[in-house]
Each structure stands twice: as C-alpha cells, then as structure tokens.
C-alpha cells in the first residue's frame, strides 16, 4: 500500500523514496507548522517534495515518530518540527491510476 511506502520513507528520512510516493502533478499540504510558529507547507509536485524534504530531513530538523496506520489512506504520527512535536493526522485524499499520491493533507490530530 502506498501509505506504507509513505510512512517508511518518512521514518527513514528518505526524501527520494518520499517523492516517489507522489505523482508528478500532486500536492501536499501540512497545516501543523503554524502551531509551532512556523510557515505551513504547501508543495506542488514530486520534485518539489524531493527538494523540500531533502532540506527538512538533513538540516530542517523534521522527523516522524510512532506512526499508527488508521486505514489505507490515513496515518497518525508525532511530527517533530525541529524539536517541537505535534500529534498529526496525514490523510491521502486522492491517488492516480498507478497508485501514486495526488493529494495528501496533514492536519493536527
């Protein structure tokens, strides 16, 4: 399932594997950062996701801990934004015909 690949990539801080979960024309919104005084994240496309998470995993201090899969489209986890942790819920809203994510939204759980 794509959600397993997504979680594995996040836990391994593997930005290339993470971007491979997404379609070329896709979007990923994260509404949690504003809770810790940071900009929310709005990314469009697999390459943008690759580059953004390359930054976040290597020097941005972002990580994911203790993921719990709710169903094939939903996972909740602790998102660590450079030391401040938010309990978050990631929801795959759409996938394309090949099973890649077209839209994923992360909200506070």
């Amino acid at each position, binding site marked *: 399932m794509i959600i397993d690949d997504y979680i594995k990539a996040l836990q391994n801080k593997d930005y290339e594997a993470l971007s491979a979960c997404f379609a070329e024309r896709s979007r990923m919104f994260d509404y949690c950062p504003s809770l810790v005084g940071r*900009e*929310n994240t*709005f*990314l469009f496309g697999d*390459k*943008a996701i*690759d*580059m*953004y998470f*390359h*930054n976040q*995993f*290597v*020097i*941005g201090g972002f990580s994911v801990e203790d993921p719990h899969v709710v169903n094939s489209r939903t996972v909740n986890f602790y998102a660590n934004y450079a030391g401040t942790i938010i309990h978050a819920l990631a929801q795959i809203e759409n996938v394309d015909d090949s099973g890649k994510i077209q839209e994923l939204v992360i909200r506070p759980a």
Partner: protein
Amino acid sequence: MGVYVITGASSGIGAKTAEILKKHGHEVVNIDLKDGDISANLATKEGRQFALNALHEQYPDGIDGMICNAGVAGGRAPIPLIVSLNYFGATVMAEGVFDLLKKKHGSCTVTSSNSIAHGDARMDVVGMLNNNPDEARIVNLVKDYDPAGGHAFYAATKYALARWARRMSAQWGASGVRLNAVAPGNVRTAMTDNLLPEQRVAMEAIQVPTHYGDEPLMDPEEVANVIAFVASPEARGLNGVVLFADGGTDALLHSEKVY
C-alpha cells in the same frame, strides 16, 4: 558608456559581473584585496578610506554604479572579519560614493544572500548593525565567538545589509540614486570551494529548483547577469528591492512569503 565600481571583483560573482559590464562597453573598477584596480582591504577603516579617496580622485564627475559585492562566508573566517567586511565594507563604501552616484543618477546594488530567509541569522547582531552601527564595539563583542558558528553571523550581516538597503532606499531614490539588494543562492565560488564537509552537506540540502537533478550549485554568471541588470538604467523601476537570484530556493522553502 558608464563607470561601474565593484568590490570583490577578482573572483566569483564579482568577477563575472565585471566581465558582463565590460562586454556591455562600460568601464569597470575592481576594488579588491588582491588583483584589484584599486587594492584595498575593505575590512578596515583605513582600506575603505583609501579606496574612497582613490575613487573621488579618479572620478570627480561621478560614477554610474556601485556594486558592493565583497564578502566572506562563515565557517572558517574570524567573526570580526565577517562583520567588518560583509556589512561595514559594503555600507561604508556605498555611503562613501553616494555623492558620486548622485552626480550621474546612478545605482547602488549590494550583494546579500538568500540565507537571510532561512532563519539562521543572529537577529541580535542584525539589530546592532542596523541600529547602532559602531563597528569597534560590535567587533569587540563578537571577537571571541568560535568561527565554526560563523554562519549565523554571516547570515546576520547579509540580513542587516538587505535591511539597510531597504531602509535607505527611499531617501536615496528620491535623490536620484537607486539602491537595491540581490540575494544569491548557493553559487560555485571560492567561498563554496572552501566549505567544511558538514557545511557542504548542509549547503546541498538547500536545493536549487532550476538545477534539480543536476549540479547543485549555481554558476556565478546566473547571479552576475541579475546584478548587472539591477545596476543598469533598464532597471530604473527597481528601488528598495531585495531580489532573490537563487533559482527558486526561497520560493521552495518559503512559498507563503509573498512580501
């Protein structure tokens, strides 16, 4: 054709900018520590004064452009050098040629950095530089900091430089002198050739979208062309702007900041 003065044009972005301006038929004066048309150490008051005296002597009728580009990266350089060269070496030189720029309704362009948007800058130092720019006291305050933590000071000087340009631009613009900042991304220069291994890893984590899957560093020419344009009369609509010439890195990491 015009007269353009560039600091730090013996290598990197400055050298490329000088080359472009010369191709356009302009006279270019390079002020640098080594191999300059005017050799001067802009990290010192004496060096700046020497360079300013030489410019006033050589160009009493004015200059068309001042490009304050000389700078040093954090990591190996002593913190006082970063502060003195990056901030005072730019602002003192710019203010010192303001009279020459006014004579020809010229422009001043300072080289900042897109690191100003990454939240790395020591904002306390930014405040001191912009609000109480007493070089001796600030240098004395920072002199014992470990150069390994120099990036925060580098970013602070570049942030303060961009803010200085924004603050001064109204008065300067109304006096006929445009003042702007260009904020380059990660460019292949002598500075980036000398980064520590951990700095290189961090630098490569700051991705340049227009270089996706390719050479991670921008070519100096990509930034130099932007600086040459901003300094030119064709850019007369630009004043008080901090223009990111970073291949889209700032937009990637901070898409929500539109102003």
